[in-house]
Each structure stands twice: as structure tokens, then as C-alpha cells.
């Protein structure tokens, strides 16, 4: 499996960053960066990373199952992550999630038919001071209201 030159360079640097024999420590960052490039953690990616780090595919599976930000199925182009943990919950996070479901017409961990959006209910993202918060891909959005969410969605729909 081949990656972009930038990603390859990044991997090469990563492999140097850990003490000899501890290269498997690069597993999580490798999966995350590769997921960003490919869109999800595919079967081929699992085998590729296992081979590069000289670990078994089960070792990789253990990590993927543990970290909820690693996805085995393709996500939407925009991955909307709504926090419903305690601070956000108190500030209306649950309603925000319900609204997102209605607006996008999909549920937790689902993708819109056009592949543009996916939705996920997530735990605390460390943005409690600005609750309710959500994250679209790597961008944070604070004090989100249902109206603000609809505007966001509309603006992203235009981007295509």
C-alpha cells in the first residue's frame, strides 16, 4: 500500500522518534495520519501498519477497538462530532445532537447517502468552557445553538 510522499516522510520520522525495539509506539499516530489521508482505517491499512511495525493484526485491532476516533468504515467528508458529556449536556448538548440527527437525517456513526456528512456522539473534547461544543473534522465550534449548527451545515453543503 502506498501513501503520499508527505505521509511517508512523516512515518519515517516517527520511526526514529522511539527507542530501538519500541517502534510499535508509533501505532496510534500512524493510524490517525493514515486515516486522515485515506478516510478510514481500511483492511489494507491494518495489514500494512502491522507489517511495518512488525506486530500482529490483532495488536492493531486491539488499538482500533479501544480508540473511538479510529474508524473502520468510511466517514463523511465532514465528520460532525457532538459532545454530550457533562458540561455540554448541561448546556444543551443532547438537544444539539438530536437536532443534528434531524437536520442531517442520520444517526450516531452514520453517513449521509451523498457521503458529505457523518455524525458521531462523542465524549468530552476539553472544550467545556465553551459548551455546548462540537467538532467538524479538526475544527472546533463553540457555544453552538441549533440555528448555528444549521448555518454551519448549509455553508459546508455549498463547499461540495
Amino acid at each position, binding site marked *: 500500500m502506498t501513501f503520499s510522499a508527505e505521509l511517508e516522510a512523516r512515518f519515517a520520522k516517527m520511526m526514529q522518534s522511539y527507542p530501538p525495539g519500541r517502534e510499535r509506539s508509533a501505532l496510534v499516530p500512524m493510524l490517525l495520519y493514515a486515516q486522515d489521508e485515506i478516510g478510514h482505517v481500511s483492511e489494507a491499512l491494518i495489514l500494512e501498519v*502491522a507489517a511495518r511495525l512488525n506486530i*500482529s493484526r*490483532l495488536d492493531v*485491532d*486491539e488499538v482500533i477497538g479501544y480508540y473511538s476516533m479510529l474508524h473502520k468504515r468510511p466517514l463523511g467528508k465532514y465528520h460532525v462530532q457532538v459532545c454530550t458529556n457533562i458540561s455540554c449536556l448541561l448546556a444543551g448538548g443532547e438537544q444539539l445532537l438530536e437536532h443534528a440527527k434531524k437536520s442531517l437525517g442520520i444517526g450516531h456513526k452514520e453517513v449521509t447517502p451523498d457521503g458529505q456528512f457523518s455524525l458521531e456522539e462523542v465524549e468530552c473534547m476539553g472544550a467545556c468552557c465553551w459548551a455546548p461544543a462540537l467538532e467538524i473534522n479538526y475544527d472546533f465550534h463553540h457555544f453552538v445553538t441549533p440555528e448555528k449548527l444549521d448555518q454551519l451545515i448549509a455553508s459546508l453543503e455549498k463547499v461540495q
Partner: protein
Amino acid sequence: MAELVTLTIDGAQVQAEKGALLIDVCKARGIEIPAFCYYEGLALQAACRMCLVEVEKMPKLQPGCTLPVAEGMVVKTDTPVIHEARKSMLEFLLANHPLDCPVCDKGGECELQDMTFRYGLGESRFLENKHHVDEQQWSPVVFFDRPRCILCYRCVRICDEGVGVDALGVVQRGVVSAIAPSHGDHLECDECGMCIDICPVGALTSGMYRYKTRPWEMNHVGTICTHCSNGCKTTLGVRGGQVIRANNRDHSGINGEFLCVKGRFGWDFVNSTERAQSPMLRTNGRLEPVSWSRALMTVARKLNEVKQRGGRVGFIASNHTSNEENYYLQKLARQGLRSNNIDHHRTGDVVTLIDALAGRTDALATVADLYAAKASLVIASDLAQQQPLLHFQLRANWRHHRSRTYVVTPGPVRERKFAVKSLHAEPGRELDAVESLRDDLSKEPELVILFGDAIQGDAVRRLVAFGDSLGIPVKYVCLLDYSNSRGAIDMGLAPGLLPGYRPVAEAGLEPGMTIAEMLADASLDVLWVVGANPLRNARLAAENAFVVVNEMFLAETAQRADVIFPAASAYEKEGTVTNVCGEVQSLKKALKVMGAKTDLEIFGLVAAEMGIDLGPFQPGAVFEEIRREVRGYNVSLPVIATGGAAQSVPLNGRVPALTRAELIQSARDTLFTSGTLGRYSKNLTSVLEHPGKLYASGIETP
């Protein structure tokens, strides 16, 4: 001497080694701290929280399994708070547990049952439906019933750390975490069943044993595995004349809890429907069942007749029969028939090793030495495949003591994962590679050298000379294949050697014929083959020879027989066997298979019928004679009688070199094959990995 600290446990002053784990210190003082995930010899996990204790000045309850003791520590293990904590832990563990104890394999032997009985609440506050997942089959031998699992990680650790296969893991997290097999929905592994055995509950069960019995309905018989030369102690679970389980949960014997796939599952040949169960006699060219007395009389008469006319008789003996049977057979041959034509399939050159050591009594390693030695060198063997227990020992030694292993092999082997140096050596070039390790090896404080069949004859002498020249204490293991390969040569089943490696000349006899010579001798009158299959890939030149066969299965050699005696397996007899390290252990009769007799009975009855007096043919009496007569075998009777292993020391000087070229060749069995026995074990042939391949480690990484 390690530093000692003084602490208080339940009000009593206790001295203990600094840094020792509280759970171990308590155990040594007879205080039980309940534990699930803690397991002696495996990495600490602290997953189950069953072991919580109160420690003064520490705000929360502490897990005793990971807490090192320190000076002045004040510990309480038995307070109302702890009782509450244990109750809560068990209540959580049982929240989704199916409580199908009445049908669960583990019922009666289950640690969760015992703990609940002892420390549990007796009722649950959970009213919700239990989370159910269907049972999964991961291989013919391993089944997984997920709701029963308490996630103690023991199976994961024994497979990774103990066996070195790393085929199990934990996927997902929280309430949905689950043990998962190496290949998504199935296992590809050693199929050793160590994970099943170590599971404290009935989550991992075996395909052979599941839903067959209640544990208390079996008889448990501790005997010795009959597959390879390592001599693992195994406890057979027998019910209604059938073996249905083998394990070693009492950790007795030289192997502790270890058993490989053959020892744990390869016992089903015993109850195979293809077992020979009646003596057969060739009549008008066809083998017909006859009575025991007719078969015995026919053979006795034939032997007497040939003896009287000075005809030629040969014996091809077994690698699986007991020391007593071997000893008695060579007596029958030598005293009864004045014949030295007796041999067996030799799988390693012990004779030259013993000769080269020339009387040194401390140079033969035991299985325990492999766990204790600071360094070891493996030459020309795929240990994990061919000598599973020895591999396990070396690995455990590395894990626990950071011992140093060197490997010289013709291909990749599993020890390479932890060896300090692994060298590739083409067959025949092993000693050159060994020589290149001289500087490293001579810096070691001590060394155990294990060598395979590629090192034989003069190469053995050169290897011992090399060992001597290192200037450090060196011990040796000459690797052999079968359960009593060592006992066969020790008991003189060789044309030139009497029991105890005494040359036949000492008894005023000429050396007899080797296996190859017997098969090629066109004028042979009688050939008696005991538990061996020489005609599998060879021809018998003497077309008119009268062939007698003691066998369990009618394999190639038996097809050529004139008389077949159905023989009992090692699991059906008493006696002793000697493992690859020369350790003598006793066999215990676990069951009786209809129609079969032990080889000792067969030899004894034929001798009696012939009118020769070879002494009583009871195992105990013959063993007494062996202890008296065979040098090196004066082993401690109490050790043997109580299920222990006592090393024989057959080293009273040189063994005059055998003048004849004798074929020494390993059978090259893998972890999943075991000569004829393996062919008739459905359990062994059913696994995906069968038949396996030597020197293929490393290729398998998924």
C-alpha cells in the same frame, strides 16, 4: 541476600524481602488474598480488583497483587470495608455472567464459583437482562463463551508470554471488551490449550471435553505423556474407560502446568476404533483373529524351533515402551535366544555423548536446568516444534531471569525472538557456526548445549571438546524424539550395547545386526517388531521370515505380520520411562482397552511358554532388577513412587566406540505430528495447522 523490611499484616509483625508483592508475602504466611488476574509467573495486570486490601496512610483500598511491601507498612486484609469491596467486585463480575454452572464445563472447578461461595454477596441487585453473545468456535480445540469471561487477561498473557505465540488479544473496551483470536473469527496458533487450562472460568473450553462430563465424575490419573521425549507429567481424566481430558492443573512434575497440543489433546488414539483388539494369525495367507493362547503358543513354538536349529532371530524394538518392557525384551533376546540382533530407531547420538563425557556425572542437564542456566546454546533443532517443553523452559528462563540463548539452526526458529544471537548454518556446517560464537560463549558463567541429530559421531566429540575448551561449566542435552527414546538406548536395545551402555563383549557376545542389516538379511528366520513401523519405507528382504508384531494399529509393518499381538499404550500400563534429559518417571495405568495386553505381559508369557525363566514379569519387580543391575539406574524409589523425576546417571566411564555405522535420524515430527500415534489421533489431525513444518517460524506472522 536481599534487603528485608518489617511490616504489619493483620496485626502481626512480618519480615519480607523488600519489593516482594504483598499477595505473595501473605500467601507465604497462610493469608489468602483472593485474586483472579494475578498469576504467578505472568506479568502483573491488576485488572480484576478482587485483591483489594487496606493499607494505613493510603487513602484508597490497594490491589495486593501489585503492591510491593515496604518498611513500616501496616496492612489489613480482613475488615468490613474489604468484605464489602469483594462483594461488590463479584456482584459486577456476575452482572452479565450467565450463571449456567449446572451445564458449564468448569462447574465444580471454577474459581468464580469458589470465590462467590466464599466472598460473595449471595444475591444481586441487577434486574436488567443479561447481555448475551453466542458461543464461538475458534478452532477444533478452542471454543469461547464470551458472557462467561471475566476479563482477567490470563489467557492473553499465557499465550503471549508463556507460549510465545501471542494469538489472543482484547478488543473494544468497557462493557463490550472481549477476548479475540488472532485471525478475526478463528485462531491460527499452537493449539496447545494452555489458554483453556488457565482460564479461571468456563469461558475458554476445549472441543474434546466440552459438555462431556462433570469434573467429579472422572478418575484423575497422573502419568507421563507418550508423545515426545520431553516427558511431561499429565493428568488424564478418564470416565467409562475413555480418556476425555488431559491437563496438569496441579503443576506437578517437571513441566509444571505446561502441555503442548499433543499432550493435551493427542490422547484419542487410545480409544480409536482402529485399535487392534484381538491377536491375529496368518492362516492361508490371511490374517485371522485368534485367541491369545493360540497366538502366544504359535510364537513360542516358532522361536523354540528356530533356536534349536540355530536359526536367525531379530528384534526391532520401540521408542515408546517402558524401561521394564525394554529391559525384559533384551533379556528375552540375549538370554532367551542368545541373539544380539536387537535395535530400535535411534533419533539422537546419546551413546557418543556419554562416551565423550567419559565418566563425568554432572554434565547432563535436567529439564529444570534449562530454566535455571544463565546461558544456553541450541544447535540444529526447531525446539518449539520438536521439543516443546524444552522450548517453554528456555523461554521462561529468559522471561524470568533474562537468561541468554544462542541459536544455530538451518532455518528460522521461534527462539530467535529472544536469542542474543541466532546464526544460520547449513546442515553439516553447524560446528563452524558454533566455533564463531566462542568469544561470546566463553564469557558466559555457564552453558547448556542442546543438539539435534545433525550432530552425531565425531561431531559430538568435537562439540564436547569445544565445550571443554570454553573454561566454564557446560552441560549437554542430546535431543531425542520419542517418549522413551532415552530408555530404549539406556536399556540396551542396541546390537552392541547391553543395558547401562555396557559393550556386549563384556558378556562374551558379538555385536548383532542393526535394523538395516536385519531388514536386508535374506536368511532371517524370525523378525519380532515391537511398537515400530520399519516397513513404512523399507522392504524386508527375507521373504519367508516369520514376522511377529506388537502393535496398537495395523500400519504397514503389521500388514506383513504372521502374528499380531494387540499392544497396550503407555496410558494403559504401569512402569517407568526416561525422558530426553535422562529423568526417570513412572507411568500410571489410567484405563484398560479390551483385548490389548502390555508388551511386558506379552514377552513374559512367550518366555514362559518357551520354558525360559527370565524372572517375574511385573513392572515393579523388573524395575527393582533395573535399579540393581543397570548402572546409573539406582534412582531414588521414593522420588519415582511419588510421581517425581529422578535423573539416571549412566556415566561410569567410556563406552567403547561402536564399530558399526548405525543410522541415527530424527523423525522430524512437528508440534502436530507424532509418528504412528499421531496418525491415529483425530484431535491432532483435525487442527488447521496439521501437519506443520519445521524451520518455518517467522513466516507465520499474520
